[in-house]
């Protein structure tokens, strides 16, 4: 029985992978993201470390040349090298924040849907609170109070962005709970925790996965924005921090496009790739949307 079940799951997974491959949007998103992940992993190894050192006065704010393909910043550092080492920080920050957000959203969503009644009511009021208060100002205030470090930023993004996931997971849990196999497991004496982990979680997992992609997009944008506003980690140059320094040094008003355009473009491409994947997942999982 369990092997039949696992075979079914495998087939479903294959079908999912197949429709992903056929979907142009998903493919584009996956390719872009893969390139950035590779750059994040191998970039800092390939790039000579010395290009990240402060340069001499004559090296500052230089437009692109054969020596510095994307020019230099106001400290005389190579923009391209900074960009590649920034990829690691921005992506890591996005992924970790997403994981925190997913874990909180899943636990609250499943608990709320599974237990119902008073627990559901309290948890959902709490979720509504996080849904309705403007998340960016909330993040700013939290980050300002906690102090500027990359871990605080990750923490702040994680604990403010789970509400949507909790709602979706709760709705799905409500429907899974009513299915017969759950009733049967209850009748043979399974505990709540066992049912939630072994039966509810696997059934809500695809939804969580689709949501992850969208949260990751929000997380990357949030890290960039918080860093830009001066709340980022000054010891770790993410793309957001690069943009912060670019703004502070007046790159936009002095026409130093090579300084402020590339980091922003990287953010746009990464967020876009997540958005494309999210859109495609939505299409695959709700075939009704396909007609559009």
């Amino acid at each position, binding site marked *: 029985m369990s092997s039949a079940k696992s075979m079914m799951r495998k087939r479903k997974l294959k079908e999912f992978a197949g429709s992903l491959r056929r979907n142009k949007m998903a493919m584009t998103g996956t390719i872009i993201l893969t390139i950035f992940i590779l750059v994040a992993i191998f970039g800092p190894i390939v790039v000579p470390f010395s290009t990240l050192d402060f340069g001499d006065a004559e090296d500052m704010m230089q437009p692109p040349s054969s020596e510095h393909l994307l020019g230099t910043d106001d400290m005389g550092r190579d923009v391209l090298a900074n960009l590649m080492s920034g990829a690691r920080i921005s992506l890591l920050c996005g992924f970790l924040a997403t994981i925190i957000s997913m874990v909180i959203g899943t636990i609250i969503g499943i608990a709320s849907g599974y237990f119902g009644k008073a627990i559901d009511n309290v948890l959902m*009021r709490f979720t509504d*609170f996080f849904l*309705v208060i403007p998340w960016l*100002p909330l993040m700013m205030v939290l980050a*300002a109070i906690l102090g500027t470090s990359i871990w605080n930023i990750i923490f702040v993004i994680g604990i403010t962005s789970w509400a949507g996931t909790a709602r979706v997971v709760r709705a799905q849990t409500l429907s899974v709970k009513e299915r017969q196999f759950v009733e049967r497991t209850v009748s043979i004496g399974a505990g709540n925790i066992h049912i939630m982990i072994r039966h509810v979680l696997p059934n809500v997992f695809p939804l969580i996965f689709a949501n992850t992609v969208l949260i990751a*997009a929000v997380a990357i944008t949030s890290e960039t*924005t918080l860093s830009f506003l001066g*709340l980022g980690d000054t010891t770790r140059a993410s793309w957001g921090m690069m943009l912060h320094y670019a703004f502070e040094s007046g790159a936009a008003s002095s026409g130093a496009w090579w300084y402020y355009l590339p980091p922003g473009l990287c953010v*746009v491409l990464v967020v*876009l790739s997540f958005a494309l994947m999210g859109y495609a997942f939505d299409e695959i999982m709700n075939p009704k949307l396909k007609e559009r």
Partner: protein
Amino acid sequence: MRKAYIIKKTIYALITILIVLVFNYILFRVLPGDPLSMLMRNPKATPEMIEHVEAMYGLDESWWVQFVTYFEDMFHGDLGTSFVYKEPVTAVIGPKILPTVILFGLAEILAIFVGILLGIIAAWKRGTKADVGTLGFALVTYSMPTFWLSMIMLSLFCVTLQIFPVGGMESPGMAFADMGTRFVDILHHLILPVITMSILLIGEYALTMRNALMDVLEEDYITTAKAKGFSSRYVLRRHAVPNAMLPMVTIIAINLGLVVGGAVQVETVFSWPGLGNLMYEALNSRDYPVLQGLFLLITVCVIVANYIADITYSYIDPRVKE
């Protein structure tokens, strides 16, 4: 039925505001960063000074008394004193409200108008270049950090092309002959930030409108109207579009939170003297009382806007009374 719905929504909104008040209290007093612990870090602080500051902020009282005092002060409109301006927070925030309302009011109106128009075209010409273009525009603007677009716009239109002034609300050091020239000057400063902010909103409005209109176009009453012999255009204008506008009410209210986040960035880049710029300054000088006041103002505004949207929706779409 509607009465019960309104009562329920009112209670929910009040509970949320209450949570915000408590949250705001905990956030700024229990977490590190209160005036006392900041003073403690100063090696020159004497025990007398610390006692004095404790008494000034009521920190020597029990937490329960502090909590009650916090609520009392709040209802008397006392939000504390700014660390930086040494003025009451309400006096610091007050004059910044109007510039923000003007800027984002105009941006919202522009975005709603263009967004709805684009959404209608995309839904009507489904699958054509216009549709794909709208979708692409929405995806790209969604992926774009607000401040980055602002920097590009500033660099392109104010520095390279020099069509608009570089930031601010009025030209500095100008003596205006009459209200008319001053108005024109403000308008000149206003155009670029308004366009920037609306670009970021148009995509979402267009997508919402497009999807809502597609849903409506599949409804039976549309088929009925067409069967009656009305032209497609007439059905679209008189039957489909008005009904597809309903979800827009909700999305505009929900988006207010997003607009506030965008305000901080747009106002910072364009040096627009509004609430967003004040928030940026307060963040960087760690002016906690101002930050707390702004956060309270913003969250309460957003909660009230959502509440109004819910109530409005129950009137214009009677199906939502549960």
